[in-house]
Each structure stands twice: as C-alpha cells, then as structure tokens.
C-alpha cells in the first residue's frame, strides 16, 4: 500500500499506520493478560516454586535478548536505508533482521530442549507452565514477524520500494519493535527476578 494518500485521511496518518498502532494496543492487552496472571500467581500462590538460578540459563537468555535488540536496530537501519533511497541497504538490513530472528528462535529452541530435560516442563509447576506458554506466545509473534519481513524482502528484491513508497516497511518496524519490547519485559520477569 502506498502512502501517497496521506492527505486523504481525516487525521493525516495513513490507514495502515493507524491500524498497526491500534492492533499493537490489543496485543499489549493480550500479553498483559498473561503477564498479570503470572505476576499474581507468582507473588500470591504458596505453591509457586521458582527454579534455582543455575537452571534458568541466564547467560544464554541474555545473549538472546541482545540478539533480538540488535534485530530491532537492523530493522531501524532498514527503514532508514529505504527512506534515503537505498534499496540495497534495505535488502541488506532486512536480511540481517531475518537472520537475527532465526538466531533468536534457534537459541530459544535449544533453551526449551535443555530446560525440559532438566525437569522444567509445562506441567512441572506453575513456573514452567507460564514460562513455556508466554515465551511460546512470544515466539509465535516472532514467527509472524519473520513472515511479514520475508514478504517485505521479496517485495524489495522485486524493486517495489523506494524513498517515497515504503509504508509497509515502517509498519513492520513498528510491529517488530513491539515484539522486541515484549521480550524485554519477559526476560527479566522469568530470568532475573
């Protein structure tokens, strides 16, 4: 969708951008529902046992957090590149973002496997139940982002974007930063506290 019709909307904001913000508001409520349930049970239930720190794999998760944050940076660079007219830059940084997203998922998969063998499973206790549910929900959103960004990459390679027409890159960026932000909340509440 092109953003040449900015002046056509009553607010001046393109439909797609407004739509993405509105969608992200609902996502905040979705993750908020899960996260507040976790906080309530973790602080309120006498039967909520928290695994010892060593079992959580904090160093690896910290690396993973860094990976995801970097992917947000590359996403910003991708948008910046196409705004300045560089399709090559767009392609390069979209690819980097995708690569980092896959790294994130890969590390996550390793984490899941390792934790499961160590005894933290979906039913081993409330910590495990919430950990897998929430991080899996987040991972699903990462996969959604990967799909969206792959589509953008394909379009970029076909030459569909230039300095004037690149609205969806911006919307994907908004989504991707949100996904990153959710992880920045999940990481401390599961690994650090």
């Amino acid at each position, binding site marked *: 969708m092109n953003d040449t019709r900015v002046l056509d*909307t009553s607010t001046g904001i393109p*439909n797609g951008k407004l739509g993405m913000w*509105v969608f992200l508001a609902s996502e905040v409520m*979705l993750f908020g529902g899960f996260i507040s*349930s976790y906080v309530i049970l973790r602080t309120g239930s006498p*039967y909520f046992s928290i695994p010892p720190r060593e079992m959580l794999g904090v160093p690896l998760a910290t690396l993973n957090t860094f990976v995801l944050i970097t992917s947000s940076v590359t996403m910003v660079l991708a948008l910046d590149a196409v705004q300045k007219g560089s399709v090559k830059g767009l392609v390069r940084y979209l690819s980097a973002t995708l690569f980092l997203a896959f790294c994130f998922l890969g590390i996550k998969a390793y984490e899941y496997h390792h934790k499961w063998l160590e005894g933290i499973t979906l*039913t*081993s206790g*409330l910590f495990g139940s919430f950990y897998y549910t929430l991080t899996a929900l987040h991972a699903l959103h990462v996969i959604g982002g990967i799909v969206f960004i792959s589509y953008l990459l394909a379009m970029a390679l076909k030459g569909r974007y230039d300095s004037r027409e690149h609205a969806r890159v911006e919307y994907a960026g908004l989504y991707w930063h949100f996904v990153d932000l959710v992880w920045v909340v999940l990481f401390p509440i599961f690994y650090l506290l």
Partner: protein
Amino acid sequence: MTAAVHREESFIGKWIFSRDHKVIGLQYMFTSLVFLLIGFSLILLIRWQLAYPGRPIPFIGDLLPDSLAPGGIMMPDFYNSLGAMHGTIMIFLGIVPLGVGAFGNYFLPLQIGAKDMAFPTLNMSSYWVYFVGGVLMLSSFVLPGGAARAGWTSYVPLSVISSGQTTWLLAMTFLITSSLLGAINFIVTTLNLRAPGLTWSRLPLFVWAQFVTGLILLFAFPVLQAGAVLQLLDRVAQTSFYMPQGLIISGELSQRGGGGNALLWQHLFWFLAHPEVYVLLLPPMGIVAEILANGTRKPIFGYKEVAGSFCFIAVLSFMVWAHHMFVSGLKTSLSYLFMTTTMTISIPSIAILTCYLLSLRNASIRYTVPMLFTLAFLPMFGIGGLTGLPLGFTPTDVYLHDTYYVIGHFHYVVVTGTLIALFGGIYYWFPKMFGRSMNMFWGKVHFWGTIVLMNLIFFPMFIQGLAGVQRRLYDPTVQLHNLTVQPTNVLMSYASWGLLLFQVPFIVNFFWSIFKGARSEENPWQATTLEWACPSPPLPHVNFEKVPTVHRGPYEYSVPGREADFWPQNEEN
C-alpha cells in the same frame, strides 16, 4: 468523481467473498438473525423443563437422542448445556454480530460519507472467522462430549473438568479474533475516513456509539483470550493455572500439580465480560438516537452529554468487573471499591436515558413502526438499568447474586432494551438496504406481541429472585423456597412460546419485503444523516455518486425559517 470502473465480478466475488462493507453487513445480518433464532429455541426447550420439571417434552422429546433426553425427559447435563449455549450464542453469535457486525458494518461508512471501511479485506476475513467460529460453536452439540455446560461464564474448576468445554474455548478464539479484527477496522475508519466537514461534533450518535464500542472490544477481548488459553491448557495439557492443590473429584484425588487460583479465571473473564455488556448496549443506544431524532423532528437533547456519556461509560466499564464477584471470596476492601465504581457507572446511563426522554419535549412525534420500538426501549431499558442498582449495591447483592433477579435484570437490558432497538433499526434501515419497505401493519403486530410477551417473561423473574430462586436449576422444585413461586414458571414458559409465534410475522415480513416490498425512495423517513444521501441500496463499492461534504450537525430537524422540517447534513444551503 465518477463511479468506480465496473469490473465483472463473479457470483462468489460479489456475494460470498465480497469486500464491500454492505454485503458483509448483510452477511452478518442474516447469519446473526439465524443464530438468534437458534439460541432462542434452546431456551424454549429449557422453558418446558422449568414449567413442567421431569415431564417428557411434547413432539421434540421424541426427536432427541436418549443420551440427552431419554423418553423425552431432559437430562440435567443437557439442561446445563442448553443454558450455557443459550447465553453464549445470544451474546457472541447473535447480538454483537447484529449490533456491531451488521449495523456497524453497513451504516458506519455510510454515515461518515465513506466508500467503504478502511480495511475491506480485513472486514471480509472478520466475517468469515465469525462464521467458522459460529459453526464450530454449534457443532459442539453433535461432537463427542457434547456441548459446553459450565455456563456462558465457564467458571473453573467446573469448566476444566466438564465435557464440551474444549470446543467452546476454540470457538471463542475464532469469535474473539473476529471481533478484534472488526474493532481495528471500526476505529481506524472512524478516525480516518470521515467526509470533508464531518467533525467530531457533527458525527451521528450512532457513529459515536460504534466507535466507542470498537475501543471497548479492542482493549477488553484480548484479556479473555489470554484467560481462555490458560483454561485450554488446563484442560488438554494438565497445567494448573486455575486448579488449586488437592482437588478431590468424585472421590479421587487429583494428580495435577496444583497451585493455581480458581478466582483468577473470574477476574480475567469479567474483565472482558463486563465491558462486553456495554458492547451489547451502546450500538442500540446509537440506533435509538437516530430514530428518535428523526421521529421527533428535532435535535437530540444534550448531544454532547450523550456522546460524553458513551465515552465515560466505556472508560468506567473497565473498572467495575468485580461486582460479579462480591460473594466469590474476593477481598472485602476490593468489594468496597467495585461497589463505588459500579454505582458510579449508573450515572452516565441515567444521563443518556434522561436526554432521550427530554428529546420528547416540544417534539412532533410520528408513531411509525421504528418509533414504536425506539420509544419502547426507553422504559424497558429504564427497568433494566434500575434493577442493576440492587445488584451493584453489595449488601443487597449478597442476597440477589446468582438468583433470577440477575437474569431478569440483564434480560430487560439486552432483550427488551437492545433487541427491541435492533428490531427498530431493521425496520428503519430496511428501505436503505433493500430499496423496499417492510409491511408496517405486520410490523405493528410484531411490535405489540413482542413487547407484551417479553414483559410477561422477564418481569416475574424479579419476583422469583426476591424469593431466592437460584440460577441454572434443572428442577427448581427440589428446593423448598422455590415452591411458592413455581407457577410463575408456567406463565413465563407460555409467554416465551407465544413470543416465538410473534416472530413469525417478522420473519415472513422481512424476507417477503426483500423481494416484494413496496419500492422505497432514497430518503423515505426524511432524515438528515448521510446514509440517506445515496441511492437505496447504495452504489456497490462506492456508495455515493459524489463524495458528500458536510455542512452541519446530524440532527438539524425543524430549523426555523426553513420550509422542510429536515436539513440534510450534506445539503449546500
């Protein structure tokens, strides 16, 4: 601007997978009316059991399988399923899709002078996701395990250990998704696609209502989705989000890990379900404003107050949810808080009703069929709203909670309130949708029969509630305190079967008029809002021959110095 280039559309592209908001609105309308009828028929079955507990159901009893009604006598589990599904179907498959999906989709773009919604493809998907969710929900009756039976409220732990609940949770996911997609569309459309000159203070109150409703849906539904996922995991993966330690079910100690909290579900559920009732209420209140201004030939009294009250209700609706939990074991300090916020939310509701009533003063009232329904809404919603007061007030709620008083309260609001207003909307907007009018004689028959019988069904519920009759009782006569008022059940049941009969003229009238109704002009009600400034029905995909420009407010009726008693919003001068 000329009409869009005429592309040959296939039948499928034009009527099945259409992206035109008007076609989608009609799809929602037909589908939701069918679901409403289905949901209605479930309660008609229940009403037999309530009037004559343990007696075989005539005619239908023989058709029901032995697992549900051996010898034609309803089983308690089947009764509970009928009750749970009645509530679920009426709210999520019936009223919301009709009020928001049908009327909102069809008339929001028209009233703001737009060609379509902001995201037509998203709109189309939102209908089909609803459709799939609806079919899945209904199919639970024939799937192994049967239909849900833990109430539309699905309280844990009962809902985790009962059958039929998994399908309910999955179907709800579809329905929630559909609503969220729709909400995004409504919000962006109202913000962005208003015609030139259509400022916020010139918006019809119907648009205000739909916009605010979209915001409520957007912020409330995801929380229920989160709660539903946790319940689903408790059911299929043996997690214990909601399941406390040491449950003993049918004499056997549960092997689950435990540690969960049963009240957590109630919080997550009611966080949505309370705002949801304003989703049920606001669009019909918007419809009432439209018809009232038109039928009284004067601007709605207190436009700003009404619009402001819509917004105030929406915000407050997120702060009252635990009034459903006063006796649940909730901390006492929280119940003081929620009692206060709950009583507060009655203020904007009273403000709206007062403004609508004051709109009758110095009016010139036309008693058309839409006006009959609209005028009936006012006292009926009055009863519904007023009976909420003893429920929001904690000391009296202790006695009335989970009794028939609650059922009477919400049916007055949703049936004699919302549904009556929606009927009014159908008669009012039928000419715009189909270019023909419905038969008004049968409209009057439908109106009078419906309103009288609805009152006969729901008013005795307050009597039952004050006597202490609990909700969801398969056979109320087992409990001594219910015996004296049991005859009211017989009255209510006959009234409900009579109510079904009075819907026949409506159903016949509706379908017959689509094909054979008297042809109607572009603006048969001489109304001012933009949906009447386009052909009947509006042009496919573009609606208006020319994009309208708005010069004045939505209810400029009987303006002094003008010959006609209505001044359309888009008219030059």
